[in-house]
């Protein structure tokens, strides 16, 4: 039996926000794959649960009239990874999601839960950051949008006030059209494991020039991060082996990994440099570029 003191099911976004306002100690539960793990064995980390599991208006994947992709945060990983819209327009997100847990976990865990849990290893975060995703946050009577990159404040901390919830994840057309990506998760096992380092890149290639590149890492800092300095240095350069070497050499200035029982800082830095090379190379190849 899980150890919580109260449980209320919310039928809508507004109801969930009201329930949060009524109880400053309440927590949302969506797919439960993080919350229930923290509640098992009688642990009392979340005594008051507001259940948003069945809110239909948060479970969708759409492409709007402008061609922007909008993902409801209660979409489970399996639905996102199998969505024809996601596979066609932002396959790098599907690629990343399929490395999460195993099938049973992906059938329950939600993409919004993965982001709102705020851990630096969230595998769905790096492809979305590389795609300049924006999240919509709703509170009582108000709604705001912020870049996903700014949503992560620290390990387990995100830019949500107590009475707020994430209601949409948007990737605009301009941010995915013409971009090709790749994701790689370095972990001890091929499934059911937490990333030692996760890496996502999206590239735009024009006439053998790297017209644009966005590179993101998980577990390379206290939050999932973008490599802005590296991106600015290489944008517009001709594609070559030297370019890949330069990217690989530059990323260490964008990251700040730590030593933990999973891996030492030095080892993570090595993986980060190696993955920069490998993941950007594959993204360029996916974009139709050739590496000389």
């Amino acid at each position, binding site marked *: *039996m899980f150890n919580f003191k109260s449980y209320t099911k919310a039928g809508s976004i507004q109801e969930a926000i009201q329930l949060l306002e009524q109880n400053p100690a309440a927590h949302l539960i969506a797919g439960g794959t993080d919350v229930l793990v923290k509640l098992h064995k009688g642990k009392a980390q979340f005594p008051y649960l507001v259940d948003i599991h069945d809110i239909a208006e948060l479970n969708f994947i759409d492409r709007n009239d402008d061609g922007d992709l909008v993902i409801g945060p209660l979409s489970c990983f*399996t639905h996102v990874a199998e969505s024809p819209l996601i596979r066609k327009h932002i396959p790098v997100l599907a690629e990343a999601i399929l490395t999460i847990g*195993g099938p049973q*976990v992906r059938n329950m865990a939600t993409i919004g839960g993965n982001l709102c849990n705020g851990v630096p290893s969230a595998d769905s975060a790096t492809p979305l950051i590389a795609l300049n995703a924006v999240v919509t946050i709703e509170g009582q009577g108000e709604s705001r949008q912020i870049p996903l990159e700014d949503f992560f404040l620290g390990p387990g901390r995100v830019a949500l006030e107590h009475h707020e919830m994430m209601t949409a994840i948007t990737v605009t057309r301009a941010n995915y059209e013409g971009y090709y990506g790749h994701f790689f998760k370095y972990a001890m096992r091929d499934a059911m494991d937490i990333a030692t380092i996760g890496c996502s890149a999206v590239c735009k290639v024009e006439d053998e020039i790297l017209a644009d590149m966005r590179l993101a890492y998980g577990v390379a800092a206290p939050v999932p991060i973008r490599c802005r300095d590296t991106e600015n240095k290489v944008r517009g350069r001709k594609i070559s082996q030297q370019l890949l070497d330069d990217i690989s050499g530059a990323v260490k200035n964008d990251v700040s990994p730590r030593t933990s029982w999973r891996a030492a800082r030095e080892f993570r830095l090595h993986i980060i440099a190696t993955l920069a090379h490998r993941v950007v190379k594959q993204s360029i190849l996916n974009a139709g570029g050739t590496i000389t």
Partner: protein
Amino acid sequence: MNLNSTVTLTVNGKKKEIRVDVRQSLLEVLREQLGMISVKQGCAVGECGACTVLIDEVPIDACLYLAVWADGRSIRTVEGEIRDDKLSRVQQAFVDEGAVQCGICTPGFVMASTAFVEKQQDRKVSRHDIRRGLAGNLCRCTGYDTIVTAVQKCLEEDT
């Protein structure tokens, strides 16, 4: 606060109406109230897959699933897989390939494999795909090879 709730669910084709405590997992309700003891608790944190059941045909770890979420849904466990005294094709393949040793992971593997086999539609499936499809289940005895072969045999029968 009242922590009890009435849940109506279908288990292996039979409709049930039961009172549950909202703090109970589906695993606890299936085992303790409904007698479905094929559903094993291994890790209780969604790592081992021993408690895998199909909820509306989707494989789920019953340990990380609140019993109240099952309201209105249809559940399949190993108890319902034998029909007319005949093992399901997945169960029979596990027997034929010797994919069972100590047996504690077997019900979870059978349900995960059943979902995997039923989901494939004329798609060519490699042993690697099968391993990825069963990545949410752990077995400490078999080394997985016989399990993968059993699933492969089921899929070959289809074509």
